[in-house]
């Protein structure tokens, strides 16, 4: 997938809804009605717009966002310096592993950045050793040592 903008035509109401839903979602019997009440929208309008934003890919997810480490799993960023002429072949090898959750090409000597997600922390080292063995390249692991507070973000 190329990094291109989805032609997003968002109106003011969509933007207000996206901003509100980035902050959280109430735990009550009729949460969509509660979100709507705060924005001057009906429950039906909130549900309709939300489904539409998800279908258009403006929102990639809606629901609880889990922190895998707290569930006993591990999530580790890793990088490799891949020779340009061999890039596509190596990307295919790495992407084929189910433990590779994301993989991005970046413009740098360290040009392949991927996230390994495993159900146990011990498994990370095995997957790294395996990637090194099939690619012949060194894998640099960048586990989180500390996460700094990140507040609410991108203004829609």
């Amino acid at each position, binding site marked *: 997938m190329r990094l*291109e903008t989805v032609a997003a035509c968002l109106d003011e109401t969509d933007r207000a809804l996206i901003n509100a839903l980035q*902050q959280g979602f109430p735990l009550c019997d009729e949460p969509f*009605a509660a979100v709507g009440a705060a924005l001057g929208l009906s429950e039906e309008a909130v549900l309709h717009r939300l489904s539409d934003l998800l279908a258009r890919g403006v929102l990639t997810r809606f*629901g*609880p966002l889990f922190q895998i480490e707290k569930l006993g799993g591990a999530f580790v960023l890793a990088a490799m310096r891949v020779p340009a002429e061999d890039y596509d072949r190596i990307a295919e090898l790495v992407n084929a592993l189910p433990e590779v*959750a994301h993989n991005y*090409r970046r413009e740098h000597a360290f040009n392949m950045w991927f996230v390994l997600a495993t159900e146990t922390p011990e498994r990370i080292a095995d997957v790294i050793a395996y990637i090194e063995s099939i690619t012949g390249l060194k894998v640099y692991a960048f586990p989180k040592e500390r996460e*700094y507070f990140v*507040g609410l973000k*991108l203004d829609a």
Partner: protein
Amino acid sequence: MLDALDRRLIVATQAGLPLVPRPYEALAQQLGVSAGEVQTRLARMLEAGIIRRIGAVPNHYALGYRHNGMTVWDVDDERIDALGQQVGALPFVTHCYRRPRHLPDWPYNLFAMVHGRDRGETEAAISEIAQLLGPACRAYEVLYSSRILKKSGLRLTG
């Protein structure tokens, strides 16, 4: 810790909440418990940090944030924690972590994802971080992504 019902609730919601007027009741019916129980369990997992938040995740590109760079900084170990908090609080930073250096190949220990609507906005954001870090930062680089090679979420299998 998590019991079997928590785990079933995670599996049932990891693809998203049902888009119906009473989503917790819909989940409760699926799991054979009360809607109150579902809300209580979700509240407990929020409290414990197992759930970061319940809400929407926007596609940055669709919102017009096309210039996204992974900025990496070599910051004085003595000062990184105090400064990292400040960098994380900046409005255009969506992720901010301390990570290990790999000397001599990789000297950077602070990673911050920066988002801008155009190159100028992103560059202004990067200068703001550089200014904030001041002399505590020895060097930095910006790694722009040129291609998404793979993007799939983690899925628990229950």
